[in-house]
């Protein structure tokens, strides 16, 4: 190869390799709690939200949000739906789950308002959207939960992690207050708190 070509070709190859790596890295498939355990925790934690019965009414509606073109997101949402189904009550109420596709934080906020959803669950794939979701849901009356622990420091109210081989609850307390979620002190004692 001619010498004057070597440098630009090398640079181009480096950029292409970097972009390919970035594309490979982007979506994630991290170790999570067994989905049935996560569903049971989710159902149980809602009973510790003092405002949940008022917010939910007679039937607790839960939105399971999926990210378009993200197989992992769809997988977790679908598994969560199956895992919640046999649980008779969540937050002490009968419940129904609705799968929705994420189109934007503002649209999601409108959908929550329109549907009267009491809780929203996010699977993987929302790392880039959590900040926007937090902003859009401020002042709304809804509990947000995510299967990815990294969501919580950025504004999802409730998260689940595995530490020392056991489940760990993560709670964003500031955002909880902004979304009218009032978690009991006995739950907060068991959770890792972010503010």
């Amino acid at each position, binding site marked *: 190869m001619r010498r004057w070509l070597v440098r630009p070709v090398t640079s181009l190859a480096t950029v292409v390799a970097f972009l390919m790596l970035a594309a490979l890295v*982007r979506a994630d498939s991290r170790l*999570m709690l067994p989905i049935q355990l996560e569903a049971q925790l989710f159902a149980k934690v809602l009973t510790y939200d003092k405002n949940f019965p008022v917010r939910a009414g007679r039937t607790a509606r839960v939105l399971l949000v999926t990210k378009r073109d993200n197989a992992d997101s769809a997988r977790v949402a679908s598994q969560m739906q199956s895992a919640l189904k046999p649980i008779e009550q969540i937050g002490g109420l009968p419940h129904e789950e609705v799968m929705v596709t994420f189109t934007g934080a503002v649209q999601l906020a409108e959908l929550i308002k329109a549907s009267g959803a009491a809780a929203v669950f996010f699977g993987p794939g929302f*790392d880039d959207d959590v900040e926007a979701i937090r902003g859009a849901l401020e002042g709304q009356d809804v509990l947000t939960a995510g299967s990815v622990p990294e969501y919580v420091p950025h504004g999802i109210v409730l998260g689940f992690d595995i*530490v020392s*081989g056991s489940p760990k609850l993560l709670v964003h307390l500031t955002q909880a207050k902004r979304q009218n979620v009032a978690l009991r002190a006995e739950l907060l004692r*068991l959770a890792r708190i972010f503010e």
Partner: protein
Amino acid sequence: MRLFARVRPATRWLRAAAGLTVVALGAFDARADEVPDLGALLSEKVVTTASKTAETSGTAPAMASLMTAEDIQRYGLHTIDEAVAFLSMGGFSSDNLYNPEIGARGVLLPGDQGAHMLVLIDGHAVNEPLHGAANLGRGLGIPIELVDHIELILGPGSVLYGSNAMLGVINIVTKRGRSYSGVHVVAETEVAKSYRAGAAFGTSTKILNAPFQMVMGLEIFKQDGPTFTFGPQGPIQDLFEPAPMLMRFNRSGPVNGIWGGDASRSHYSLVPAGYLSLEWGKFTLNVRASTFKRAAPYSSQYINVISDFDDPKNYQIDRVFSGDLTYRTQLTTHAGFTARVYGDSTDRRTYTDYSRRLACRFPVATCREADEGLSRWAGSELQGSLDWWNNGRAVTLIGVDGRYRYAQGRSDLLDYDTGRPLRSSTAVIDSSHPVLAAYLQQTAQPLTWLAFNGGARLDYDPRFDPVVSPRVATSINAWQGGTLKATYAEAFRAPTFFETDAYIPNALLMRHPLAPERVRSIEGSMEQKFGRNRLVFGVFRSWWKDLVEKYVFSQAEKDDLVARGDLAISYVLGPVAEYRNISSIDNFGFNGGWEGMTGSGRFHYGANVTGAIARRVVPGSDKPLVVAPQIFGNARVAYDFEHGLPTLGLAAHFSGSRIADRAFDGNFTPFPVAPPQLELRATVLGPVPLIKGLSYRFSANYAMADRGPYVVGVVQQSYAGLTNAELIPVDRFRVTAGLSYALFE
């Protein structure tokens, strides 16, 4: 009429049974849907090792024991073998003052260097192929603060992992950056015996919009002592010495045929180590590097076999470097894919000095034996998973693993003073070959209370016929908080390169091909959860066969070897051996355990007990296993005062009497048995007042018995009036003090 009379009661029983079954099934189904209280849910143990997926210990297809970082801290533990001894159910360790040995369910094979327990670090297999060795003491090379938890899966585990998983699988899972962020510094000392200093760094952030986590730790451990007093054993004769024909156990000093004295210079170890774990989006990278140098203050059947006494230049050093890169992705909502590439390099050098002429046979003051071994392997594992209905209730896992292994080894005999070789290298190993495997696992949960797990793995190694390792397991969530489980599993251990390839003329022959060791096991267990408590009871039975051992030729056989030209006549009086598939083990027993905490989470407790009978069987002989206890267990309590006040922990492990390793072939009187052992460890830890981030940990350890189950010294067999076996001493009392400092958490 008669026919009816016979049939009716049977029909009635059948109807009654059917009715009960329907009621029971209904009850199971209803109970399975009830959500336990929050404390119970948060106390669930999640394991990933048994079926390569996250699942609760109750549904895992094997009996699983999980040891957490909190418990390791709370009870003043420093190493994996200590965690197994003080916390696990079914596992135990045996300290030989050199490199602890691990056993399970009443089976321990002394001198196996850990080859019958598969050890994983973050899923990466550690056992090297030259000796099958895996260090689980200080020599592991993982700073203990980096350990998030340890999973011990009891019973055969080759179905997903291949060779070595005969006793079980130990998976050491390290911490993630998000739960160990900041800079962490630790300094610790076992007063007057050892010190350890380490630093670790953890972070969690985003790079290119993908989550990034990293934990990296470095540490150095140095131990010197304690001094033990051995013997005196002797006088021992040496026919090759001039009058008075007594054996020499030191380069200098009187030649009096006496072995023993104070071993003040030869009980030490040095372990610099580092570990890096990095997660970036779909990629995970783990890198480990360590060196482990150690010396034992005695000689025995397996360690320093013919060495001089208290010579600090008798030592062994291991160097390890390994890397593992994993890529995980979800291809569709139903299908996931994992690709892994890995590579390891381990080398081991062992130096033994001996001045006894009978052993050396060269006209030099001291012979120095230098044994060197190197093994390297690299490979790739591809794994796919298919969730048939995308609800986790029917998942197929399929994988292939291919690696290329390479081993070298040799043994040289040198003149200690000049370094000049005294003979050609022996035990020369220069071997390489591929190892291939494929595995399949199917899980199914047809009902909320019923789960199945079945699978098999096929391993190909050119040294023997392909091996199939199946496993089938079922678990039934029988009532609220109660799980019944039954498992059948098989496992194998491929002979090591040393066993198949080492040849020492006139000493270690190599005339028979070796088959892999096999074990099959059946077990049943019951787990009951109530609140934050977990009660487990299980029974097991296992059958081992084709165990590889050194076969020592009889005098008649040696004469025959001389006649055939396989043995030089000048060695006909010395020991001559070869590795063969010799023995079987019949093993059965029970495990029981209870662990939990109070509702506030401040008071922790646990206890485990195992009773096991294990007998070594060879044609015409059936004897209990040596070194392994028939009853053993542990217990612990801890209370966390919180609010800046300390946590107090008290842990104990105990074992019944243990038959010494040379008991059956040493002809000793009295029959050598180590007494029952009870080891207690009290720990206090907490934050240092007024200095944020600084914390302390003090512990004191006391062992009731002063002897362990290894015969030490030159008298390894009853000899010329020396009929007593000297058992290995125990380091009975240790006090440990440590400080740790966390910054930027």
